[in-house]
């Protein structure tokens, strides 16, 4: 592995700089970015007018209640979606871990027959592929698909987050499982423990705190994503934001934006606190 990395030629810094420069130039041209107009007196004035129109936020009882309901829904989508993701990720991650299936210290003492080995390689390849598919399709596309399958509402949002994040977490979990310290495993194996019991007493105790930490981190990502999914009809704050913008309800829009800000900050703080307790 390292030999391969060493033998590969490194890209020269000048090539990188020139390449990035060309990329930026091409992108500048293609996106028709007009910073001049944006930062001109007229452009800035227009932004000012738009921002001014947002104020003050709509703090009427009805608007607040609406925002609160949507915020709770968004929170619920992110939480249930993250838990579902962990449930999807865990079994797939076990299947995507070579050191559990056919490789490494647990398999040094004996040889696997040809058929069992092929079966295990198959499980490994299948798990890896499923995880890759789950995580490369963006959550908003999953949301569109699930809205098509089960109809509008927060439930397709939960499914979308669960499936996409399940792919992301499955990959991360698998890396954690392969990276656990093998020395305690060898010790457990020498007591005559079966592989399943070694997973229980040696691998999982080392891996689970990391699992929790990764799941919490993805929860932070998911609270943001849950606020997006409403755009395609999957419930929560996103749906209300879309409506408020389409109907020019600027004051309500600001209320909703504040609600998003509060939710995101809250979940970030909660997750950081929990992670500090776990690790």
């Amino acid at each position, binding site marked *: 592995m390292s030999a391969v*990395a060493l033998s590969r030629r*490194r*890209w020269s*810094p000048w090539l*990188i700089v020139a390449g990035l420069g060309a*990329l*930026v130039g*091409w*992108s*500048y041209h*293609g*996106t*028709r*970015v*007009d910073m001049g107009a*944006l930062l001109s007196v007229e452009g800035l004035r*227009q*932004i000012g007018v*738009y921002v001014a129109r947002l104020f003050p936020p709509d703090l009427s009882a009805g608007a607040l209640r609406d925002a609160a309901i949507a915020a*709770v*829904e968004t*929170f*619920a*989508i992110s*939480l*249930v979606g993250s*838990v579902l993701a962990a449930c999807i990720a865990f079994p797939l991650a076990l299947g995507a871990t070579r050191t559990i299936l056919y490789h490494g210290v647990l398999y040094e003492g004996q040889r696997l027959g040809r058929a069992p080995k092929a079966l295990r390689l198959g499980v490994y390849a299948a798990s890896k592929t499923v995880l890759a598919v789950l995580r*490369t*399709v*963006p959550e*908003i*596309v999953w949301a*569109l*698909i699930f809205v*098509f*399958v*089960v*109809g509008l*509402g*927060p*439930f397709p*949002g*939960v*499914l979308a987050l669960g499936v996409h994040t399940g792919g992301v977490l499955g990959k991360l979990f698998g890396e954690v499982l392969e990276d656990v310290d093998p020395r305690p495993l060898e010790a457990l194996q020498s007591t005559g423990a079966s592989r399943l019991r070694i997973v229980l007493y040696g691998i999982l105790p080392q891996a689970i705190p990391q699992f929790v930490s990764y799941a919490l981190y993805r929860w932070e990502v998911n609270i*943001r994503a849950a*606020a*997006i999914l409403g*755009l*395609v009809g999957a*419930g929560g704050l*996103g749906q209300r*934001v*879309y409506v408020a*913008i389409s109907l020019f309800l600027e004051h309500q829009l600001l209320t909703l*934006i504040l609600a*998003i*800000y509060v939710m*995101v*900050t809250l979940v970030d703080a909660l997750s950081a606190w929990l992670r500090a*307790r776990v690790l």
Partner: protein
Amino acid sequence: MARPADRFPASTAKSAFPYLLAVAFALTFALSLRAAQVDPRLLFDAQALGNVARFVRGALPPKLDPEFLGMLARPAAETIQISVMGMVIAVLLGAPLGLLATSSLTWRGILHERVTRRARLMLGAAPYGAARALLSVFRSIPEYVWALMFVRAVGLGPFPGVLAIGVAYGGMLGKVYSEILEAVNPRPLETLHAAGAGKAGVVLYGLLPEALPHVVSYTLYRWECAIRASAILGFVGAGGLGQQIELSMRMFQFDEVLTLLAVLLLLVGTVDFISGRIRARVVR
């Protein structure tokens, strides 16, 4: 006076915290299940299964005729361009704000030992606080909300997408830049400062050389995220592949959706590869 039982706190004291946490989690989760209207039966009723079958039948085989593929070149390129320009703006926003939001540069620590308290608060702490607040607002509002607002302000097309990524990612970059800068070992800075270097000198000769690899590496990592975001922003009218995906989905052209996803996968993979190679080069 410690009672004998207190002598081995690890062996006797059992904290109630895990149990409280478990109960709180179970409650929140149960309430969330209701609020999110989770109903697994919906997934397995005849209609849902029929829809799944419809989707799969419609998606296979993916649409690969040259005309359609030719039509995708432009939005695919646009997706990359939006991500690149978005990152340029994010760096332009994030770097100065990140510097201001670094307490060791603005008001705390050895560089400010000899400045009066008043001056420190007025000239240092105030801009520091403002920069942090601004960064927090930038990054806590999701990029698609920014995109919706910029579409309002500057019209449809890739430009609002660029601005949305620029602002939202500027907030994230600024925060992480300041964290990286705060973590730099202060000793060399002290030496430079003692030798009479001004703030600019300290930043250029002390901070940047230490921090730059991390800064570049994190920026490239964010670019990998930006390409995904840029694909999604199309959903609110900000150009790129997302717009096509939504269109095809709404028209039930699932074979087109599959092709579009494959193209997106290719783009994301390419960007990840390039960024990964450069990152490996920068951080050795």
